[in-house]
């Protein structure tokens, strides 16, 4: 009998599909959190593999800050139409209008932190018991500690000291009413794995991932897309640059990189040679040594 070793992408894919099917089998009302970024786009492809020709056993849920790149929203709507699956949108603006969240002031104001309020409200409103997300352990040191099935209490909080042991490929999704589980099927993937998978599977992406000309300003040493949401003033000089985005958050906290990578192959070469981590371009991680850990404890994704 020949030795069958799965290629590493096959192995990562099979593990993620297994996890998605465990969610379907173990929960009453799961949801797939979709941001329009490459990681959640990868999750959608994996869900197609896990459940087609059947329907997804969960809706897609987008927490919309209202400060998105227009390209991302266009991509989202086209994708949902192609899939024929249900999309639920939670609007941060609604949370602000209801007085549950207060818009930040000042030049570096961002709605990034407010997303948590809208997310928890959306989870409560729809009574989701599991939320599938595209977080990866290689992104950040607090995420390296995260289980694949991560239990959150009724306040959405993550308690790293009370994590369940996670053995073999057995995932314990038992929870009490009001709690929910965050599930991370691509925990074991790295940024480069995601890109290699997107290339192999020939998955379409929002255009902002590829090099394009754009009006930018420089803020705190980072290149930001010029947009009205950025509280720009006369100090902010707009210049036309050739850029692309390495992650897709909202426009107030996602920095661009100068790039000539027009094709996936170029991007993979660029990332392989880069000496800066993916989240090095996220303003939100730089607040403190434990910025991500603190946000996760508060219910952030």
């Amino acid at each position: 009998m020949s030795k069958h070793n799965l290629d590493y992408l096959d192995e990562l894919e099979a593990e993620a599909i297994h996890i998605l099917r465990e969610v379907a089998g173990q929960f009453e009302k799961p949801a797939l959190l979709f941001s329009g970024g490459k990681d959640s786009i990868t999750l959608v492809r994996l869900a197609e593999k896990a459940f087609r020709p059947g329907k997804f056993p969960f809706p897609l849920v987008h927490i919309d800050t209202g400060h998105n790149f227009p390209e991302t929203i266009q991509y989202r709507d086209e994708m949902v139409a192609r899939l024929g699956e249900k999309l639920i949108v939670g609007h941060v603006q609604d949370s602000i209008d209801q007085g549950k969240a207060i818009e930040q002031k000042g030049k570096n104001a961002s709605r990034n932190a407010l997303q948590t309020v809208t997310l928890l409200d959306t989870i409560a409103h729809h009574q989701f018991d599991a939320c599938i997300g595209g977080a990866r352990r290689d992104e950040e040191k607090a995420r390296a500690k995260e289980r694949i099935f991560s239990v959150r209490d009724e306040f959405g909080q993550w308690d790293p000291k009370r994590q369940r042991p996670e053995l073999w490929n057995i995932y314990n999704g038992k929870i009490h009413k009001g709690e929910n589980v965050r599930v991370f099927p691509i925990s074991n993937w790295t940024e480069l794995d995601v890109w290699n998978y997107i290339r192999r599977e020939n998955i379409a992406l929002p255009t902002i991932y590829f090099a394009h000309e754009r009006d930018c300003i420089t803020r705190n040493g980072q290149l930001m897309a010029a947009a009205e949401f950025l509280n720009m003033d006369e100090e902010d000089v707009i210049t036309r640059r050739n850029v692309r985005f390495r992650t897709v958050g909202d426009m107030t906290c996602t920095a661009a990189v100068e790039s000539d990578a027009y094709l996936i192959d170029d991007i993979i070469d660029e990332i392989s040679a880069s000496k800066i981590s993916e989240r090095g371009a996220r303003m939100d991680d730089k607040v403190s040594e434990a910025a991500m850990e603190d946000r996760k404890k508060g219910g952030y994704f």
Partner: protein
Amino acid sequence: MEILKFITAGSVDDGKSTLIGRLLYDTDAILADQLEALHRSNRKNDDGTIDLAILTDGLKAEREQGITIDVAYKYFQTEKRKFIIADAPGHIQYTRNMVTGASNSNLAIILIDARKGVVEQTNRHSFLVSLLALPQVVVCVNKMDMVDYDEATFNQIVGQYKVLASKLNLQNVTYIPVSALKGDNIVNQSANMTWYNGKNLLEHLETAEIPVDDSAAHARFPVQWVVRPQTEELHDYRGYAGRISSGNFKVNDKVTVLPSGFSSTITKIELLDKEFDEAVAGQSVTIHLQDEIDISRGDVLVNSSAKPEVSQLIEADLCWMDTRALDTSLTYLIQHNSKVTRCRIQEVLYKFNINTLDKVYEEEFKLNDIGRIIIKTADALAFDVYQNNKANGGAIIIDSRTNVTVGALMLRAAVE
């Protein structure tokens, strides 16, 4: 390219975090902004070099106390392989975290302090490696710089460990003298130990054999989800979705559904728009059968020519992972692959003293205790002996009051 998953084990001050930091640092897996953060954090070794250990301690409480609390997963890659490190705490009170990390690993690195030799923690970790049936062990005798890179010291420790390894029946053990702090024999061959002619640690990890289950005799497919689109054009479509846990399945194979015992033949193996003649262990697929049989989540398809044990009364090794002691009067849940059923621990046969490796006859099962028990399940489990087939021989126990995973089971035999 393949993935090797490994765990690192050692006592608190054996330099485990430094070893991992060194592996990541010397393979260029640390990026500029992470390195900058490392310099910013200002923790230094005695000789003024940066403290690589903080790379692995991701939580505030860990950095405050300078110890590792929970398993962290680290990723790096060389031209030959991708690696996933389960960085488990060495502390005695975190035995359950080591079991967690080890359950998914192909190889264990056990660190021994060259000044101290084999200590209690070495026994404990090696015992866990043996219990969880990790196929390969690398013993890194660390801090060789502190014993003047002395060959005799290394040989003496190798001799000590060989006694332990034979007692635990560890088959595949490699010994490497290293200094994680100075970088000797981790990624670069040491100039200080010319007497050592073996591979350095990274070379060993790059070439260690990754075990694959290629035995056709043990084909197992736990059903996770039944795909039934119930649309006009796919009215009769019924696919069984799951991941092959061991062996392989081919179209036309005769399979039996357990625990019901009905048999049928595979007509199609597919995934999205791909069809396969054969699918192997590790693959997630959807399987179609010739006959309409009642099959649901929790059932397992097996090759009809090699069936597993099917029983409601099973002898098993148990590692208890909860602060509440085991209560033999309580009903718990057991989860084995995709199957969940009620269970009771019918009898505690004995516990292991994991420092001396002796059997102890005690009823009480507390946090981090390991021993042999007999479990009774409400529905029959179709299982294999853990030592022969980990994927179908491991199970967890869940406390239905708290929903927490409280025990790890390695199933051993059906009780007549």
